[in-house]
């Protein structure tokens, strides 16, 4: 079963630019019936997982749970002057293709040129069991309330994910912040920007360059974090192994009193500071510390070239 929900028109290019001209010039005095919200609902089977593949050039995208048997797509836009753009902009500019429980959404090539001049917002209400891939060249992405797995890729823009409860979330942005909370498993990577992980399952976070920081709270399993010049701060119970790496950024670790773990910290030119009664404190000259704490347990490894490593 296959259906093309939005069929390309051969005269699309001309009509689309005519539309844009009308959008940018005349829509400030719309007819009363003009709608500014694009709205499309597509029926889905509840017996099979749903797969959604989105690729857009620009715009802020939100994916959130709606209902199990339907994909609802909403979109709105404002031009540079702040005027709302009629829904025809999306009706003509979005390609939506459905084959059973797989839906692909693409922006027409012309859309990229035009939408870069606008503030565009997309909202996808998806089933809980959604397997999601989304790419946007420039724009923020926000995902909330699905089982996963999900892959969110932004060229430039922030990524936020909340309550992706059952499978891997892969979040990558060329430049921008990444925030994940209550995600089952995370791979987060930013070219430049901060990463915040709260109450996530096994996770890996990488800030490739710059002073972007990694902040981790309530880690629920394995964690590996790497920064360049940014700090790493982790405060959690050691449910899994931790591996923390920085070039020049400081590493600050907070674990509960009486926690049992194997501590292994080393810095080339920085310092190792220990502020706990249940650990042996290194001398000022020592740049490493390896010890079993409270009988030992999960590995807590920290490495820095020139940053300070502190644990409390």
């Amino acid at each position, binding site marked *: 079963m296959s259906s093309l929900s939005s069929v390309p028109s051969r005269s699309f290019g001309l009509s689309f630019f005519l539309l844009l001209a009308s959008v940018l010039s005349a829509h400030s005095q719309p007819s009363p019936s003009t709608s500014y*919200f694009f*709205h499309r609902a597509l029926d889905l089977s*509840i*017996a099979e997982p749903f797969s959604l593949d989105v690729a857009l050039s620009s715009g802020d995208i*939100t994916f*959130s*749970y*709606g*209902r*199990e*048997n339907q994909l*609802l797509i*909403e979109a*709105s836009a404002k031009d540079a002057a702040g005027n709302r753009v009629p829904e025809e902009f999306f009706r003509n500019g979005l390609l939506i293709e459905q084959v059973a429980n797989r839906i692909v959404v693409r922006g027409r090539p012309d859309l990229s040129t035009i939408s870069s001049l606008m503030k565009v917002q997309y*909202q996808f*209400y998806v089933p*809980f069991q959604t397997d999601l891939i989304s790419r946007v060249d420039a724009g923020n992405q*926000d995902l*909330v*309330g699905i*089982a996963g797995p999900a892959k969110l890729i932004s060229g430039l823009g922030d990524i*936020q994910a*909340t*309550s992706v*409860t*059952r*499978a891997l979330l892969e979040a990558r942005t060329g430049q921008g912040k990444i925030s994940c*909370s*209550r995600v*089952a498993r995370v791979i987060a990577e930013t070219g430049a920007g901060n990463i915040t992980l709260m*109450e996530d*399952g*096994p996770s890996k976070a990488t800030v490739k360059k710059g002073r972007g920081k990694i902040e981790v709270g*309530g880690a*629920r*399993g394995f964690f590996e974090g790497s920064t360049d010049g940014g700090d790493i701060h982790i405060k*959690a*119970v050691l*449910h*899994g192994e931790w591996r923390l790496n920085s070039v020049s950024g400081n590493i600050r670790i907070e674990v509960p009193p009486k926690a049992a773990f194997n501590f292994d910290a080393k810095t080339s030119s920085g310092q190792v500071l220990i502020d706990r009664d249940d650990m042996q404190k290194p001398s000022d000259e020592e740049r490493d510390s390896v010890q079993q704490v409270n009988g030992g347990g999960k590995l807590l490894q920290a490495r820095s070239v020139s940053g300070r490593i502190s644990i409390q």
Partner: protein
Amino acid sequence: MSKLLQKITLSGLVCLWSIGMLAQKDPGVRGGLQNTGGGLQTQGIRIPKPPIMSPNPNHPELKMNDNEISLFFEGIKRMGQLESTCDKCSVAPFGVGDGNPVDTDHGAPANAEIDPDFPQHFTNSNGLGTRHNSDNCFECHAQPVLGGSGGFIAAQKGAVAQNPQFDLVPHRSGRQNVVPAFEEQFGPIREVRFKFNPDGTRDGGVHALWTTRGDVTDPFNTACDAVQPDFATEFKKGNLSFRIPLQEFGLGLIESIEDNEILNHQAATATARAALGIAGHPNRSGNDGTISRFGWKAQNKSLAIFAGEAYNVEMGVSNDVFPNARDENHNCAINKPAPNDINRVDDTDVDNHAFNSPLHELPDWQLFLVTMRFMDAPQPDPNPSASATRGRAVFEQVGCSLCHTPTMQTGGANNAGGPSNSPILVDRPANLFSDLLVHHMGPALADDVIQGNAGPDEFRSTPLWGVGQRMFFLHDGRTNDLLQAILLHASGDGNNDNDDAVSGDRNTKVPASEANGVIRQFRKLSVADKQAVLDFLRSL
């Protein structure tokens, strides 16, 4: 002569068959039982989650925020917890808890849960009460999807979907309960109220069906000696009143309707109502006098009260608003302090299941409240038949809509008043098909239970949204036939078969049903028009 007799007999049979074929008929659960609730579980398909509140049609820019959505999902998890008698003896199933794989594609064994959010194994629990009606919210709210009304449950793939009160709940974990005759294998899920106490004074309260006696999961429960009430004797005396679970969809919208909206609808239809003998009045909170609106008799003032009461009455989980155990038999409460389910702010996190999250400080009953608040209204059939479309007009024409008010508006238009819970609930239509008032429903439906201003024969006009996928009807689930449910609205005027159906020896004399006039009009409809009404209702 015998040939003539044969011809007459044959003609009669043909005639009867024709009448049967031509008679109006409830088309049944929309989508089919096999594609809803437990029918899906039988096929190994999880029951879908409840829909989250849809975009506000009047204000599309108003959306639920990430925190609200997270709380909605956390609430589903809490509702899905299979309660056991203690926290520490719980066993987390695959897909629940740290690091467990969630499905066979990701490392879980083949016998993993169909749905980790509706598990059949224990999860973190706050303590199943010594006396309870169920051990999990979704046992009674899974038709057609989680959060719905009472239906059937299949414990595993391939199992026959059936009333979970027939075997699953009463005998889980070795519990030694005797199943009363009124809990039938393919009948409705019923809870029981006693009409009167032994001394003849009014009771009206819920008497829990089950006890934890015999539960083998809790080593501290071995001394539990709680005994079930003698339902058989009370049943023979006509002292039992049954109620079935209502759906939870759209309740946030109902909560967001201002009292004035209800009263204005009542006033606007007063003349038409009076012409048909319909009155109706709000049930009101005894303290602040505002309109209460949840439950079969609109006896519950708020979703918070409703949620707290459900946790305590249905599962025996005492909580902030109902802090006392319903049975303080200490033999069944060793290592089990009450209230069982309250805000968890202890520093050591011992009672917080090591979640280490402020989110988890909210007790289950409060998250249940949040989830109910944000469950969307039932979605009607997007492609109703011509008959169903016509049926709506007939529904209004005969007067059904005088009590089953099609639409009310939530408060908050023009930023004045309205709900503060969330912008998504503000100033939007609620197509509930109820006036939220209580009405005299006659001796055939009277349950002899008084709750607030609702008398022994008074019931709230049940919201009809979602009725298209409900399995059982009326407060006690006495029928699964929508036509019968309509006809049973009439009694007490001496012209109805239902007048013979009144049972019990201590039932209070009550007036005739306010619906008699409307049902008289309904009975006069052609077969096609009656069918149209049934088709319309099943499209909701």
